[in-house]
């Protein structure tokens, strides 16, 4: 079988916002990745010590897998059809059928099984996203937003990746756009999405989520060396920085994407204060990166005099406070 749907690949910083932006562009609505990320209420924080990846606790700097699409679709008035499968064969047949009908398909997949992903990134992380836009012989044509150009993947590997097991198992999940709206109220949608994120970050009554979650992490992190010993503490720390900065998950990175979104909104809504808040958000991203630099020195065993867990906890608490101020201000602006 040979199918190739004309699809323009644009590389992006984050997989899910990149996939959605590229799918929307394909359907005639050209949105930036940052705008898509913002409309999808992509920014988030949760420290989930009870979910483990490689025996180490999970921290997320963005919304759950599928969250961006779930929020952006109603905000934009688009219809996205999502399907999950219990049988692998059925899942591949459904994909082939859609491709045959000329529909580019988004997939949630496990990154561990993808041969084209650089070896060093292959962990059992199951919430990666990509677009399949064709098939050639035994290979699928793939637009993976974190890759510079289109790639191919053998069907066996793709099938495996679609049915990766463990935390956030994709269960063959595929999605595609079935309807585009006549008119889009971008400004209104952006305002709503900002309120959504601001509420989640400042008003969630759960101690591990949002600004409270960031503080909770800071308090826990401070005690890691005593509670876990130096070696394990360094492993926890390394995992945290990986969640924050590594491919497709860049968390300092997520703060920067959101800052880019706020900047775009500032122009869109002719609202000057948004530009200022965008700058403040940039500063938070820089602060998260400062933490990562110290953390990396500790992981490498090259800690300098002031590189302590207490110092890192202070930076993280400062991030929490700064994010609290930004989102409180945003909430005021839009509600």
């Amino acid at each position: 079988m040979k199918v190739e749907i004309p699809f323009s690949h644009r590389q992006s910083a984050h997989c899910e916002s990149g996939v959605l932006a590229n799918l929307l562009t394909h359907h005639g609505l050209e949105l930036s990745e940052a705008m898509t990320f913002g409309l999808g209420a992509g920014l988030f924080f949760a420290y989930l010590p009870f979910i483990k990846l490689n025996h180490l606790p999970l921290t997320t700097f963005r919304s759950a897998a599928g969250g961006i699409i779930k929020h952006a679709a109603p905000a934009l008035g688009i219809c996205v059809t999502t399907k999950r499968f219990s049988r692998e064969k059925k899942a591949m047949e459904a994909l082939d059928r859609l491709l045959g009908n000329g529909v580019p398909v988004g997939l949630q997949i496990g990154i561990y099984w993808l041969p084209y992903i650089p070896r060093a990134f292959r962990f059992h992380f199951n919430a990666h996203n990509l677009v399949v836009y064709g098939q050639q012989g035994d290979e699928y044509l793939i637009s993976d937003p974190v890759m510079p150009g289109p790639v191919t993947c053998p069907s066996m590997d793709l099938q495996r990746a679609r049915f990766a097991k463990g935390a956030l198992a994709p269960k063959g999940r595929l999605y595609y756009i079935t309807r585009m709206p006549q008119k889009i109220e971008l400004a209104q949608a952006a305002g709503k999405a900002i309120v959504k994120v601001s509420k989640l970050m400042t008003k969630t009554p759960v101690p591990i989520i949002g600004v409270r979650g960031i503080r909770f992490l800071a308090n826990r992190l401070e005690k890691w060396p005593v509670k876990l010993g130096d070696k394990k503490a360094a492993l926890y720390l390394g995992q945290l920085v990986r969640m924050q900065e590594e491919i497709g998950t860049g968390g300092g990175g997520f703060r920067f994407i959101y800052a880019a979104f706020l900047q775009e909104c500032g122009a869109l809504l002719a609202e000057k204060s948004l530009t200022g808040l965008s700058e403040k958000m940039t500063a938070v991203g820089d602060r998260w990166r400062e933490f990562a630099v110290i953390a990396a020195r500790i992981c490498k065993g090259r800690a300098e005099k002031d590189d302590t867990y207490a110092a890192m906890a202070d930076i993280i608490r400062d991030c929490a406070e700064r994010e609290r101020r930004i989102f409180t201000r945003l909430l005021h602006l839009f509600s």
Partner: protein
Amino acid sequence: MKVEDVPQDSGITEGVSEIRYALDNDGRYVMAGSKGWDVVNTVNRQAWDEISHQTAEVLARIRRGEVSVLAYYMALNQMDEMLLAKYARLSRRRVRRHLKPKVFAGLKRDMQACYARIFRVEVEEFASGRLPDSVINIYEG
């Protein structure tokens, strides 16, 4: 972060350039390519060193006869009993049993084939119980 501050430390990305959002000279956000960041390279290396370390420990335990060869493939593939059980569609208890050298030696062919498929090795290779002399870290291999 400004465009000129976007790190260009090559390492784990195998030459794949990533996108980072950074500010240009006019304070506007742009997408900038990054070859990687030493901070990320460090923590990524730490993760792989840990995987190699655990795999080496498992090899030693297998040689002492404490666990079966299955443990090596699990460590190599970053799987614990729970995750492997899900891939193999078995109960965790059964996977744990297969970690006993004696039980493993008596595994039926189709069970061996099931595991071999998950770990992407030939069933003969898996069943032979051959082990490498040492663990290859992806940073050295």
